[in-house]
C-alpha cells in the first residue's frame, strides 16, 4: 500500500495506469499478478451488477469485477479488446475488467497526495490518493474496497 | 537457570520440531524465521546456544555465525549448524565460519539434546 501521508520515508513506487469509465486510475504494481485479455466468464447467480462472473486462472476460481461499474460508471460491455488485471491483496485474488492499460508510472511516495475532499461517491470511496503527472492526474485504487467479500460484509 | 536456545530456521516444521524437542528436554527456546530475524533475536535475547539452518532467505546460516562471532555481545556462544549436508566439506565450511558443531538433518532428538547439554554444560 502506498504511504501517501508519510513524507519521511520517501520510497520509489511503481504504478500501472489504466482507464476505466473513461477516467485514469492506477494500481500499485506489487498488487498486480498479471494482465490478460478478456475471456468469457462463468456467471454467478445472485451476484451484484459489477460482478461479471468467475474465470479459471490456472486452476483457481477468480472473480472478475467490472471496475467501471464498481466505481459508479456505466457497465463495460466486454470485448476481446478489453483487459483483465489480476490483482492480489491479503491472499484474495480478483480480476478487474478495465478499458485499457497504459503504462508503468514510477513516482516517489511523496508524490502520492491525499484525495482532495469533496462529496463522497463510489469512486472517492475506492481511491487512496491521487498522483499528478505533468498536467494529468491519476487516482490510486484502494484494492481492498473492491474485494467481493467486502461487499458481503457490508451487506 | 534454564538453558536458553535460539533456533533459526525458515521451515516452520523444523522450528516446531526443534522447539518440541528442546522444550521437552527442559530448555527454553526462542525461534527465528531467517538469518536477519535470527541476528535480531540474538541481540534481544540471552541465548546460551544458537542452532541455525544453513539455507535461509535474507541471510544464510554462515552469515549468522559471522555476525555473532564478529559482534560485541556474547561472541563466544556455541553455535550449531543444522544442515542436510554432511562430510568433510561441511565440517570445514562450518568451522571456517566459526560454528561450534553441526547437526545433520534429519536429526535424532536424543543426540541433539546430548550435544546441547555438553556444549552448554546444562
Amino acid at each position, binding site marked *: 500500500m502506498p504511504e501517501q501521508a508519510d513524507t519521511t520515508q520517501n520510497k520509489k513506487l511503481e504504478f500501472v495506469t489504466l482507464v476505466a469509465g473513461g477516467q485514469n486510475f492506477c494500481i500499485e504494481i506489487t498488487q498486480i499478478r498479471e494482465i490478460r485479455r478478456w475471456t468469457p466468464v462463468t456467471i454467478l*447467480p445472485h451476484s451484484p451488477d459489477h460482478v461479471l462472473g468467475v474465470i479459471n486462472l490456472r486452476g483457481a476460481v477468480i472473480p472478475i469485477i467490472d471496475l467501471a461499474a464498481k466505481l459508479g460508471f456505466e457497465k463495460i460491455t466486454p470485448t476481446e479488446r478489453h483487459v483483465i488485471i489480476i490483482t492480489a491483496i491479503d491472499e484474495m485474488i480478483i480480476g478487474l475488467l478495465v478499458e485499457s492499460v497504459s503504462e508503468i508510472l514510477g513516482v516517489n511516495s511523496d508524490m502520492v497526495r491525499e484525495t482532495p475532499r469533496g462529496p463522497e461517491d463510489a469512486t472517492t470511496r475506492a481511491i487512496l490518493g491521487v498522483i499528478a503527472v505533468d498536467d494529468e492526474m491519476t487516482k490510486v485504487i484502494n484494492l481492498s474496497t473492491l474485494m467481493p467479500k467486502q461487499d458481503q460484509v457490508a451487506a | 537457570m534454564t538453558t536458553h536456545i535460539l533456533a533459526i530456521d525458515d521451515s516452520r516444521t523444523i522450528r516446531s520440531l526443534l522447539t518440541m524437542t528442546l522444550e521437552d528436554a527442559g530448555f527454553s527456546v526462542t525461534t527465528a524465521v531467517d538469518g536477519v530475524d535470527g541476528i535480531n533475536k540474538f541481540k534481544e535475547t540471552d541465548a546460551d546456544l544458537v542452532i541455525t539452518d544453513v539455507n535461509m532467505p535474507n541471510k544464510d546460516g554462515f552469515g549468522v555465525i559471522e555476525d555473532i562471532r564478529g559482534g560485541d555481545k556474547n561472541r563466544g556462544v556455541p553455535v550449531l549448524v543444522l544442515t542436510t549436508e554432511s562430510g568433510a566439506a561441511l565440517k570445514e565450511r562450518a568451522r571456517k565460519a566459526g560454528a561450534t558443531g553441526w547437526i545433520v538433518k534429519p536429526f535424532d532428538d536424543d543426540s541433539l539434546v546430548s550435544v546441547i547439554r555438553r556444549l552448554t*554444560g546444562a
Partner: protein
Amino acid sequence: MAQESSILDTFFEECEDLIVALTEGLEEMRDGNADDETVNAVFRAVHSIKGAAGAFALDELVGFAHKFETVLDELRSHKLTADDGLLRTLQRAGDILADLVDDARDQRPANRDVVDPVLAELQGFLGPEEEAPAEEFVFEALSLGFDDDDDEGGYIVSFTPGAEFYATGNDPALIISALKELGKASVTVDTTGLPTEFADFQWDKGYLTWTVEITGLMTDLPIHEVFQFVDDICALSITPLDAGPPAIDLPDIAEPDPTSPARPEPIAAVAPPPEAIEATPAPAPKKEETERPAKKAASTLRVDPERVDRLINAVGELIINQSVISQRLQEAALPNSSEIFADLDDYKLLAREIQEGVMAIRAQPVKPLFQRMMRIAREASDATGKDVEVVTEGEATEVDKTVVERLADPLTHMIRNAIDHGIETPEKRVAAGKSRQGKLRLSASQRAGSIVIEIADDGAGLNRLRIRDIAIEKGLIASDAVLTDQEIDHLLFAPGFSTAAEVTNLSGRGVGMDVVKTAITALGGRIAISTVPGEGTTFSITLPLTLAVMDGMIITVGGQTMVVPISSILETVRPSPGDLSKLGLKSELLRIRGEYVPIIDLAEQLGQPPSDKTMAERVLLLIQTEAIAQCAIAVDDIFDQRQVVVKSMHNNYGDIEGVSGATILGDGKIALIIDPDAIASGPAVAPQLTQLPEGDLSHARAS
C-alpha cells in the same frame, strides 16, 4: 501466535494418539487381557502427556498426570493389584486426563469438582503419604559407574585448545565436565605455555594443556563423542590407561602432581611442573536422567499439512488435465483403433490411483473420535444417572482429517442428546418392559463414495406430538399445518428449536440440532433421522469421502453448464406431460410411482430468466433433501457423470446461495456446483415464510 499454536497443535495431536493408546490399554486391562507391557504402555502414555504438558506449563494436566502415573507405576511394579476398584478408578482417571487435555486445548479451567474426587481416589491407592515420584528411583541404574570398580581400564585424555577451538564457541570447562560424566576422572592442567607477562596474555591462545584421566571406561567411543566437533583443533590425544599405578583421585581440584610418571606430557615441560587450578568453574550439575519412553513401534512421517494440500491441488489439476486431453482427443475424431485411447485409459487409471494415494494421506481412522465420544457418553450417563452401554462399530473407517476434526462437536451434542432425551431412566425402561440398561450404538461405515456415521439409541423414540406443539408454540409452523412424520422429525433441525422443555445442564448448552445440521452441511454432508416410538431413534450422517473430489452429474440450465452432486440424486426423470400437474398458477408437481413431488425450477432459483422450455421438455432430478422428503429439480439437460475437483469460492469471492463451490471442466471453463438442499429450500419457493429461514415446510403448508 501462529507458530506457538502450531507447536501446541502438534502437542494436542500427540495427546490424541496417547489417549487412544491409554484407552486401549485400559480396556485390555478391564477385559483381563493385559500383561506387563500393557501396563507399561499405559504408564508411558500418561508419562508422555505429563512430560509434554510440562513444556507448555499446563499445570493442572501435569499435576493430575503425575498422580495418575504414580499409581500406574505402583501397578507395574506389582505393589498394587489390578482389582475392580483400581480398574474403575484408572478408567475414570483416563477419562479425566482426556478431559484435562481437552480443557487445555480449549483454554478452559479444569472442572475441579470432577477432577478432585478422582485425584483423591488415586491418592487413596497410594496411601496417606505422598510417595516419592516414580522417576527418582527408577533410573538409578542408568547413572554411569561413578561408584563402580575403577579397575576396568580407563584412558588418559589430553588436549590443548587452540585459537580455533575458542573462536568456534567451545569451552574447555564443558569438555572436562562432559568427560567427568564418563567415569571417575582426575584433571590436571599444564600452564607452562602461559606467557610470563600478563600483558601478553591473549584469551584465545592455546596456552593450556588439560589432562584428564578417566577410569571405569571400557571403550574410548564416548570420549570421541565428547570431542565430536573439536577433535582436530585441540591437539587431542587419547591413550589407554595401562596397568600403571592408579592415578591420584582429584575430584574437583587438581593438586600439583609431580609424581605421575604415567601421564604423557604433550607439550615439553621446560620449567615448573603442572600447576593446579580449578578444573571446572562450577561443580558439574548432578546428572539428571529423564526417562525416554520407548518409541512407538509404528513409524510415522510428520508432514506439514500445507504440503499435502498443495499435492492434493496438483493432483486435482492432473485430473482436470486428463479430462481436457480426453475431450480434445474425442474432438480430434481419431479412428477408434488408435492405440492412444488405450494409453489414455492407462493415464486415467494412474491419475486415479495417484489421487487415491494422496487422499489417503489425509485420511484418518475415526477411532480416536469414537473413543472421545465413548467418554462423553460415559460422562453423560453418570450425569443423568442412566445406565447406558455404548458400543462402537467400524472404528477403522477412515475419513478426511478435517472431517474427523469437525465432527467432534456435532457428535458430542448428538450423543449427549441421545442419552439425555433419547434413552429413558432405568425405572421407565423396566416399566416399558425393556432392559434396565440402555444401549447407544455409534457406527461408521463406507458406502459407495460416502461415509455413513450412525448414532442409534434404543430409547423412547421422538415424541412427535410434543415436537409439533413446541414448533407451533415457537411459531415455526402454523397450528393447522399438516405435516408428515418425517417432516415433524426434521423440525428438530429448525433454528431455534429445542426439544427439552427445560434446558438441562447436560445438553442444553445453547446449541440446538440446527447447529449440528449446519456443521454437517458445511462438510458437504447430510443428516437424516429415523425413529420408532418406543424402540429408539437413529441419526444418520452421510459425508463425502473427501472434501476435494466428488462425483457429479453435468447439467445445463439457461445455457450454463453446472454440476449436481451424484450423492443427492435419487434418479433422473424425463417426464411425459401426463406425469406433470399444475399446482396453482405456477407450481408444478411430478407424479412418480403414485406420489406427488414438488418441482423446483433451478433457473428460477439461480435468478436466471425463465426458461423457454416447457417442463415436459426438461429433465427432472429427483433428490432427497433433509427439509422435505423429496423434490424434483428441473434442469434443461443432463450430460455425463464424472468426477470433479471441488474448488472453493469462499476465499476469493464468498458464499453464494444455492452454490457449494465450483469445478473446472475439460474445456477449462468453470462450472458451478449446485447445493441441492439449498436450492430445494431456497427463498423463491416460499417467499411468504419469512419466519422460517430455510422455508422448509412451505409445501406442507400449501397442501
